[in-house]
C-alpha cells in the first residue's frame, strides 16, 4: 500500500491536519508550500502503512518545535529537519529507513514529509500524538517506552544541538525548548529513534491517511454543495478513532486570549443555534475542554482532552484555529473520540485532563454523548 503523494494530496492533508490540530498546531500553510515546492522540484514523498515497516528498520520522528507563528515570518532555510535527521543518524550510528511524523495536527503534518522527501526515504502513515499536543513528551512513543533522546535540534544556520537525557522525556523537553528559544523561537527536531517493531507497537496508525481523507471529504463535499462536516464524521467512523458527533452548531460570541507560561490560553464562547445554551471551550494552544452551559448557569462537560474538540467553519468544514477565531463566525463543533492507543491509563497519565490543569477525569466522548444522543451522528 505504498503511495506517492501528489501536490493535490498535500492540499488535502493540510486541510485534514488543520482539523486534527483541534484549534492548535499552527497553520499548515507554510509547511504545505514547502512540501509542494519539493514535489514540484522533483522530490518524491512516499507513504507506507506501519504494517509494512520491517521490524528491524530504523525509524526516526521529525517535527518543528517552537512557535508556529515564528515560522510564518522566519521561513526555514530548507534543510533544517534533514540536518537534524542526519545528525541523529550520526549519533546513533544508524541510517534512518523511515520517517514518522511526531504530530499529525497542524504544521507538523508537513515538516516530516519534507524531511523524508529530502532524505529520499518513505514516511510512515501514523504519528505519536494522533492530534496536536503542546509538549514533546506527549507522544505515544514515549508513553509506551521508547526514549525520546537522543534528540537533535537544528536551526537555519546549520547549527544543531544533540540532547541526550536517557529516558527522561520531560527534561528532554525543557532542554530542547531552552535551545529552541535561543535559536529564534522555532527549530526543527529529530527524535525518538526506534525500530519498526516499536512503531507498530506505539504509533497512532493511519493518521496521515486520515488527514488526507478528511481533506478529500471536505473538498468533495464543497464541490458537491453537500455537508462537509457530515463527510468528516463518516470518515471518522471508518478509522481507528471510530466515533464522532456534532457537539453544537452556533455562532461565536466571545473569544478571550492571553499568553500564560508561553501557551496561548483562553476561552471561546459559542451561542448554540436552536437552543438557549452556550458552549464554552477552554483552550491552551489546543482546545482542551468543552462545556455546555444552560441559561440557568448549569454547566456540563461535553468533551474533554484527549478527545478531539474540533471547531470547524460551518460552511466550508475547514478548521478554525484559536488564533483566527472571531466574533460572528458560524461554527460547528465536532467531537472526535480518541483512538484506543491514546486512552490507556499510562497514556492518560501524560495527556489526561489533569496534565492541562483541569480538575476533571477523562470521560470518553461517546459516554458524554450517550444520554443525549443514542447513536453516533450523522
Amino acid at each position, binding site marked *: 500500500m505504498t503511495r506517492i503523494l501528489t501536490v493535490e494530496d498535500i492540499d488535502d492533508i493540510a486541510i485534514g491536519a488543520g482539523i486534527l490540530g483541534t484549534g492548535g498546531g499552527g497553520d499548515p500553510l507554510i509547511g504545505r508550500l514547502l512540501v509542494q515546492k519539493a514535489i514540484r522540484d522533483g522530490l518524491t514523498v512516499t507513504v507506507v502503512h506501519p504494517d509494512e515497516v520491517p521490524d528491524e528498520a530504523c525509524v526516526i520522528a521529525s517535527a518543528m518545535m517552537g512557535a508556529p507563528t515564528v515560522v510564518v515570518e522566519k521561513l526555514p532555510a530548507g534543510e533544517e529537519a534533514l*540536518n537534524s535527521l542526519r*545528525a541523529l543518524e550520526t*549519533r546513533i550510528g544508524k541510517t534512518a529507513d523511515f520517517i514518522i511524523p511526531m504530530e499529525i495536527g497542524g504544521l507538523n503534518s508537513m515538516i516530516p514529509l519534507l524531511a523524508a522527501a529530502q532524505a529520499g526515504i518513505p514516511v510512515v502513515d501514523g504519528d505519536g500524538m494522533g492530534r496536536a499536543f503542546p509538549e514533546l513528551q506527549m507522544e505515544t512513543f514515549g508513553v509506551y517506552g521508547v526514549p525520546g533522546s537522543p534528540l537533535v535540534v537544528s536551526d*537555519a*544556520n*546549520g*547549527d*544543531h*544541538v*544533540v*540532547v*541526550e*537525557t*536517557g529516558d*527522561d522525556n520531560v*527534561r528532554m523537553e*525543557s*532542554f530542547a*525548548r*531552552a*535551545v529552541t*528559544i*535561543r535559536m529564534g523561537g522555532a527549530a526543527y527536531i529529530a527524535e525518538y529513534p526506534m525500530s519498526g517493531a516499536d512503531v507498530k507497537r506505539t504509533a497512532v496508525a493511519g493518521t496521515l491517511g486520515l488527514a488526507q481523507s478528511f481533506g478529500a471529504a471536505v473538498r468533495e463535499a464543497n464541490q458537491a454543495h453537500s455537508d462537509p462536516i457530515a463527510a468528516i464524521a463518516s470518515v471518522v467512523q471508518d478509522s481507528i478513532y471510530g466515533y464522532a458527533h456534532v457537539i453544537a452548531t452556533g455562532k461565536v460570541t466571545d473569544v478571550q486570549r492571553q499568553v500564560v507560561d508561553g501557551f496561548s490560553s483562553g476561552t471561546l464562547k459559542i451561542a448554540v443555534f436552536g437552543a438557549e445554551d452556550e458552549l464554552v471551550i477552554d483552550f491552551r494552544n489546543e482546545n482542551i475542554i468543552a462545556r455546555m452551559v444552560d441559561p440557568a448557569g448549569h454547566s456540563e462537560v461535553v468533551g474533554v482532552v484527549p478527545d478531539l474538540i474540533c471547531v470547524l467553519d460551518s460552511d466550508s468544514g475547514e478548521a478554525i484555529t484559536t488564533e483566527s477565531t472571531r466574533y460572528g463566525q458560524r461554527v460547528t463543533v465536532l467531537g472526535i473520540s480518541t483512538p484506543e492507543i491514546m486512552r490507556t491509563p499510562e497514556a492518560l497519565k501524560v495527556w489526561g485532563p489533569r496534565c492541562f490543569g483541569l480538575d476533571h477525569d477523562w470521560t470518553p466522548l461517546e459516554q458524554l454523548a450517550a444520554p443525549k444522543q443514542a447513536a453516533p451522528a450523522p
Partner: protein
Amino acid sequence: MDPLTATAHGQAVALGIAGAADGPLSEQLPSGAEFPAAVERLASLGVDAQAVVPLEVGGFNGLAAVAAAAQLSLPVLDADLSGRALPWLDQFSPAYSGVSMLPAVLVDAHGRTMVVGGATHAAAVPDTTAEAGSAADGRYLEEIVRAVVRATGGWVVVSFSVGTLSEVADVVVPHVLLRASRWGRVLAAAQSLSGLQPYLDAEGGRVLGDGHVSAIHRPGVDGGRTGWFTVSASGPLLRVDMQNEFLAVAIDGSMACTTPAVIGVLDARTFLPLRADQIRLAADVVVIALPPSLPRRRDAYVERTGPASFGLDFEAVLP
C-alpha cells in the same frame, strides 16, 4: 605538560563548569562522572583527547580540571583559556584566536548530555574570517549554555576541543597552573608582607596596599559578589571594584591596576587569598597585583578582558 613545547599527537580538551558558581554547585556536588562523560562524548565526535586544559585557572575550575585529568589519566596542560577567572565563555581565548568552541559537550548534574553545534557558526556571518567565526561560535555557545543553565537551574560541565596539541600554544594562556601552584606555596609559607616582597618583585608585581576593610558596597545582586569595598589604614585609601572577580583597584582615587591583571586580596594574617563574597567589614587584608599571564594574542586578550568588557568606563592599567 608545557603548552609551548607540546608536540604529542591528539588534541587538548577544555574542561570547566558553567552556571551559578557556588550556590547550586555547593549543594549539588558533581558526581565525578561528568568530566569523563564529557570527554567520552567528545571522543564520539572525533576528538582525540590527549591533554586537559582548564577553562580558567581561577576558582573552582582550575582544580576541577586537574582532578578530571587525573581521573582520565591524561596530562593537564600548564595553561588555561582565561589567565584568571572570567564570567563569560566568549571572553575566553578561543573566541579571539580563530578556534571554534564547537562542537561542545554539556553534561548536567544528572549526567544528561547535550552536544552543541558541529557546523561552524561562521557560515551565518558574511565576514567569514576565522576570528569572526570563532567569536560568533563563542557567543552562540555562551547563549546556549546560559539558556540550558536557566532551564536546569544549576550548572553544567562544558567541554570542547581547543585544537591539536602541537598548535595549542597559539590559543591558550600558558604557564598559569604552575604559577598558581608557586603562588600557593609562597602564600602558604608567607609569614609577613616583607616575606612576599621578593616574589612579587620577581614577577613585576607589587603590594597595592594593606589595612582593614573600611566600607563595603554590595547592591545585593549575585549573592554579594558585585560592588566595591575600600581598604584603609594609615597609608593610602584603596578602592576595589568587583564583579565575581576583582576588577580594579584605585589608590587614593587614581586607577592603579585593572583586569586582566591579577588582583589578589589576601587575609593579612594567613596570607591566603579571599574571594569576592568572603570580604567582610573590618577584616585585615593585603591587596596585591600581579601582571597578567598573557597569551600570544595579547592585544585581543586585554581588549576582551579589560575593564570595558565589564562595563567599566576606563582604560586598562596593568602593573
